[in-house]
């Protein structure tokens, strides 16, 4: 389910729309809450009826001899009223479910129509080489579109080079809602899904075959393959090159350092060099750490000054979505990853917070949360930021099999999905804010919540999946208010998602309430330990 926008009875402006989660229903959280309440009353009424049957079975006299006011008469009246309640609540709940089902179908239909149209247009344009540069740069490379928009915005704000012509820059300045319009997001989603069709059209593959091979068909081609193609081309040109990363702890609460000496978990910092990997790793992750000489207490492997480590307070267990969003690190926190540990030493439970893209310039820098990692992650390769997270988890003392709840924003969300899909962590929950959508499979039954703004273009840049088990929670952030013009992709900013998280905490929707309960069971009630980790590219 990829629907966005307002539910049949919804009007935006603080309304949450829910879809997915193994259901074909799409509706506002209020509708789902009402539906659950009605089903609850229905089941209660059925139970009452059963219990009254027990009363009747104990004996109510001969019905032929009943007089008004007799137990048998009163009992019959109560049973009739209660059966009517059960019928009425079932009908009402069914009506709401049917409306949500229809809304889901119409959303699906609209998306399908847009995707088919975009696929055909993309294929035709590819065949005719129309807009070839645009297609190559923007469609075949989903995140390059973001970079383009961002750099354009930077230009408007006098912060960097321009990738857009002046007339377009002027137009964007005069129409700030364009990039942050739900219709734009929907269009971009369709265009991104048609990138493969454009490429296949350019290669002369017939349209039916292209459709069968593409993202909407066999899935052999899609955002991942497009990004992989871009990566190969860019690296040949000396851009988007991956590097080793080094990770250092820049803040911790008392006790967090003790985690490093956890029995049975090889410590990185204790020996001043990487130990055996506690978290299963693949590819070049280990070499990155070794090359950098990562330590848990400072970045000393390459001669850089060890950063001063700040003391942090022991964290209280996160109580809800606002707490989770509020703890995702930003550049002001000095690191990209925050790790919290709850429970005792024998049974630790972890919450790992992963930040979003910090550096959007495709030219590269020492920041691993950059465009190189974005494109590498979309291509389903091991990004520098991915390796940095795994190193930080290992250094914090996490052992394979320890239960973890990843909480992430933007690029961090894609990385969290990869950590789970690759089996590098034992996730017991997942929350993402504004993450690029992904078709990566999740374990059955994993409670996974993907929170998106209708005006946020970044989730639309990923690959969608028809069999997605994630519960999507969407809202229109700027409904009824002006879109800020002083921020890059304003609907994608973490500050906006923190507002939305507070809104979700107030929702009566049963699945959102259930997730909060699950979270509380995982983290318990006692304060934990935390550490913040900073990663740099080296080499």
């Amino acid at each position, binding site marked *: 389910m990829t629907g966005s926008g307002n539910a049949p009875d919804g009007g935006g402006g603080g309304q949450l729309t829910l879809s997915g989660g193994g259901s074909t229903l799409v509706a506002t959280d209020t509708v789902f809450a009402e539906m659950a309440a009605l089903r609850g009353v229905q089941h209660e009424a059925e139970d009452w009826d059963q219990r009254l049957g027990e009363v009747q079975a104990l004996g109510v006299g001969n019905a032929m001899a009943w007089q008004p006011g007799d137990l048998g008469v009163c*009992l019959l009246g109560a049973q009739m009223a209660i059966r009517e309640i059960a019928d009425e609540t079932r009908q009402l709940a069914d009506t709401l479910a049917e409306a949500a089902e229809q809304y889901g179908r119409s959303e699906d239909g609209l998306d399908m129509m847009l995707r088919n149209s975009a696929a055909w247009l993309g294929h035709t344009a590819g065949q005719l080489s129309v807009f070839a540069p645009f297609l190559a740069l923007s469609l075949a490379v989903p995140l390059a579109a973001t970079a383009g928009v961002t750099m354009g915005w930077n230009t408007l704000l006098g912060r960097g080079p321009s990738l857009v012509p002046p007339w377009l820059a002027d137009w964007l300045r005069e129409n700030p809602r364009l990039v942050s319009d739900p219709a734009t997001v929907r269009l971009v989603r369709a265009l991104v899904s048609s990138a493969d069709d454009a490429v296949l059209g350019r290669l002369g593959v017939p349209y039916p075959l292209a459709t069968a091979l593409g993202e909407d068909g066999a899935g052999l081609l899609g955002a991942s393959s497009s990004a992989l193609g871009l990566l190969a081309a860019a690296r040949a040109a000396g851009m988007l090159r991956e590097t080793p990363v080094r990770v250092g702890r820049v803040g911790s609460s008392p006790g967090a350092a003790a985690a490093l000496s956890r029995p049975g978990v090889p410590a990185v910092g204790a020996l001043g060099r990487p130990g055996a990997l506690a978290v299963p790793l693949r590819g070049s992750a280990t070499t990155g750490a070794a090359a950098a000489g990562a330590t848990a207490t400072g970045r000393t492997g390459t001669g850089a000054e060890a950063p001063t480590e700040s003391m942090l307070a022991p964290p209280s267990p996160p109580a809800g979505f606002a707490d989770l969003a509020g703890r995702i690190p930003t550049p002001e926190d000095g690191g990209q990853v925050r790790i919290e540990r709850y429970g005792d030493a024998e049974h630790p439970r972890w919450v790992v917070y992963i930040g979003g893209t910090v550096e959007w310039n495709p030219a590269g820098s020492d920041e691993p949360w950059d465009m190189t990692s974005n494109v590498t992650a979309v291509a389903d390769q091991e990004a520098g930021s991915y390796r940095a997270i795994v190193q930080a988890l290992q250094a914090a003392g996490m052992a394979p099999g320890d239960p973890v709840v990843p909480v992430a924003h933007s690029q961090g969300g894609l990385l969290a999905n990869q950590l789970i899909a690759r089996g590098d962590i034992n996730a017991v929950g997942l929350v993402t804010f504004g993450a690029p959508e992904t078709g990566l499979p999740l374990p059955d039954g994993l409670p996974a919540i993907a929170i998106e703004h209708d005006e946020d273009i970044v989730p639309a840049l990923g690959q969608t999946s028809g069999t997605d088990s994630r519960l999507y929670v969407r809202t229109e952030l700027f409904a009824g208010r002006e879109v800020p013009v002083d921020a890059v992709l304003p609907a994608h900013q973490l500050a906006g998602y923190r507002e939305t998280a507070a809104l979700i905490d107030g929702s009566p929707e049963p699945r959102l309430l259930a997730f909060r309960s699950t979270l509380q069971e995982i983290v318990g009630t006692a304060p934990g330990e935390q550490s913040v980790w900073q990663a740099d590219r080296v080499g």
Partner: protein
Amino acid sequence: MDLWNPNLLPDADAEAAAALARLRRQRWLLGLVRDDVESTGRRLAGQEVGTGWRSAAQRAYTARLAELSGGLQSAWRALDDALYAVDQDIERVKAAR
């Protein structure tokens, strides 16, 4: 029937005791159901329909909820009457002993 049969009185007592036990169990069961109905009715009455709903749908839905509340009140009244009837039966059995 021999009214002076010494075995008769204990049988009548046992019958009355069984009737009382049955009625008390019925009363207990009915009381639980009535309390549950009352609690659900209060919950439903205090439930606010989301403000984001379109007005026509909201009005229709609110009307259906009001009907539902009415149904719960009817059930509650019938259960209360049933409880009164059981109480009367209990008094009758007690008086007859």
